[in-house]
């Protein structure tokens, strides 16, 4: 298995290089038929992200493991500062220094992408993995028309003529619901409203047909009245383009609307991964329960609105044992001493000592 993957990578990088000489294009591999690639398109194993500071290294993302399957919407949820954005940036290779990947690996279709040479990685961006940022007002270059930004991206990744790229851009803008796309394509970002700009950003992220789109809080900066529209547009567009989505948000309500699976993050660690329906209805990890308690539910009655007291610890003083223990209503001795690891319980994976016993009994 390991050897297979290694060989695959070498082959792939040769394909890159040949293409790199003339045009910057990423060749889609046809050789990878192992079961791994069929089930998971993106696989993140033990990802650790650190910052080296004066006070020593700070671990912002700690041993995170999850996978994303083709075409699914995968939610990544947690309070602000949990390490969600860093995880997303690491996947697309855009971690801002001084942050760096200190361990683990990221593979796309069975090929490691966390150690690619710069130009190979660049060819992946937009073409294989698209990204959507939080603030549509600042995501677009104010000095270029949206048409220029779209065609430029299309021309970077595909070998079409400028006229064809222009046609594609207009079609794409129409698809994301911009009326009069043929005229508006020559307008500048400041001539669009926030919601319209996020539609343009979605078009930009999808214009080279990536298999995966990382959407980092795509609706947080928008007016509440249009959040739902943009969210369903994102979901629909990605389905039409066959792209999986990693939806990063702090809002469990957003996740429950559009995601199929969800990972809950706390202090840079995953605490629970599983089906959205499962976690929304029966969150197991005390932190996930707290998160669920923080959204008013329309579908089912929550016995009692659980609120989590306190705040997430700063990176400089993450408590020993379970990072959540100072805030956890069910904390016991073991939690303060030993760090729980993800264990499979029914269909979910949970990192909590409450369930270790069950796992032990079940296994």
């Amino acid at each position, binding site marked *: 298995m390991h050897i297979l993957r290694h060989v695959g990578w070498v082959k792939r990088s040769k394909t890159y290089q040949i293409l790199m000489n003339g045009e910057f294009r990423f060749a889609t591999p046809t050789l990878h038929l192992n079961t791994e690639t069929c089930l998971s398109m993106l696989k993140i194993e033990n990802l650790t992200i650190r910052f080296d500071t004066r006070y020593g290294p700070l671990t912002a993302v700690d041993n995170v493991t999850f996978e994303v399957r083709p075409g699914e919407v995968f939610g990544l949820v947690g309070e602000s500062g949990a390490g969600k954005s860093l995880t997303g940036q690491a996947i697309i290779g*855009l971690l801002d220094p001084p942050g760096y990947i200190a361990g683990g690996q990221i593979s796309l279709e069975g090929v490691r992408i966390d150690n690619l040479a710069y130009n190979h990685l660049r060819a992946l961006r937009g073409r294989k993995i698209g990204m959507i940022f939080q603030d549509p007002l600042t995501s*677009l270059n104010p000095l270029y028309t949206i048409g220029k930004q779209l065609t430029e991206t299309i021309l970077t990744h595909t070998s079409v003529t400028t006229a064809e790229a222009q046609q594609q851009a207009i079609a794409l803008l129409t698809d994301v619901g911009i009326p009069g796309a043929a005229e508006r394509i020559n307008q500048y970002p400041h001539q669009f409203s926030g919601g319209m700009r996020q539609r343009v950003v979605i078009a930009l992220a999808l214009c080279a047909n990536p298999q995966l789109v990382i959407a980092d809080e795509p609706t947080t900066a928008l007016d509440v009245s249009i959040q739902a529209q943009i969210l369903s547009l994102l979901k629909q567009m990605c389905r039409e383009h066959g792209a999986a989505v990693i939806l990063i948000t702090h809002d469990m309500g957003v996740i429950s609307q559009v995601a199929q699976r969800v990972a809950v993050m706390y202090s840079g660690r995953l605490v629970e991964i599983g089906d959205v329906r499962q976690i929304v209805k029966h969150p197991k990890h005390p932190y996930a329960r707290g998160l669920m308690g923080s959204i008013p539910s329309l579908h089912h009655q929550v016995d009692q609105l659980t609120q989590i007291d306190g705040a997430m610890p700063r990176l400089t003083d993450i408590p020993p044992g379970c990072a959540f223990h100072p805030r956890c209503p069910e904390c016991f001795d073991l939690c303060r001493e030993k760090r729980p690891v993800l264990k499979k319980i029914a269909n979910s994976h949970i990192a909590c000592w409450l369930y270790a016993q069950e796992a032990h009994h079940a296994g």
Partner: protein
Amino acid sequence: MLAFIIRRLAQSLFVMFFVALVAFSMFNYVGDPVHQMVGIETSFKEREALREHLGLNDPAPVQFMRFIGHAVQGEFGLSYQHKRPVAGLFKERLPATLELSFVAALLALVVGVPMGVYTGLNRHGFLSKLFMTFSLIGISLPTFLIGILLIFIFAVILGWLPSFGRGEVITMGAWTTGLLTKSGLKALIMPSITLGLFQLTLIMRLVRSEMLEVLRTDYIKFARARGLSNRAVNFGHALKNTLVPVITITGLQIGSIIAFAIITETVFQWPGMGLMFLQAIHNVDIPIMSAYLLLVAFFFVVINLIVDLLYYVVDPRLRIDLGKANGHG
């Protein structure tokens, strides 16, 4: 667009009018022009006749209008020292100053912008640190000292370059140029470096800090996330966004280059307007001084106008807003 240009033109005219007022006051009230023009042995009567002839007894507004009328035609009277029309003197001297200023500004831009981009992109590189250190020298050393140092090294010790003058010049109609002869070009090297060094370092530091600022923005991250090449991101998206402040500062600096040419021209005995102005100050040659004042103000105003128009070309936000404003007004 048209309304914008007209508004800017009106502002420019107002500035010029004000400067003209200052120049006129200097002309009329600093010393006695008649006294400057005639010898000691001239009688009082003759002086009065001359005064009447020159219109110096007319009311001040009339004199001012006449002054402006003459100034528009390039008439500034006779130089006290040279006993020749000031306009002719300036015509001879203008090419030297403009050529020097132009080469200095070009040097500052052509070297300063790429160095700024480089240091912005490779913040921690060895070369960047070298450039930054070097730029500190450029900013902190006074112009005349740089000039003297250059003369000492390249003219006195090495004997490679001439220490003064413009070299051989070629006359083309009303213009004389040193750009077409070898000695003229050699003579330009040290003065243009001396004059442009401060602006060069200023532009480099400005471009660098603007680049650093722009590279942190979301739209640059988004451009990278879309897989655009480094070249497209750095030079297409980032550099273009640094242009507005760079244009502003460069525009202002070109004005200062022309004004600061005084010092460089003195150090290198460059036969330009600045040198003439300094000599005029020594001899209280008011016509030259007021003409110089007006001319430099004129350059500043024209450059500002060009800068405003360039904004308009670079930044679509301005274009549309102005379009709207014009539509309403």
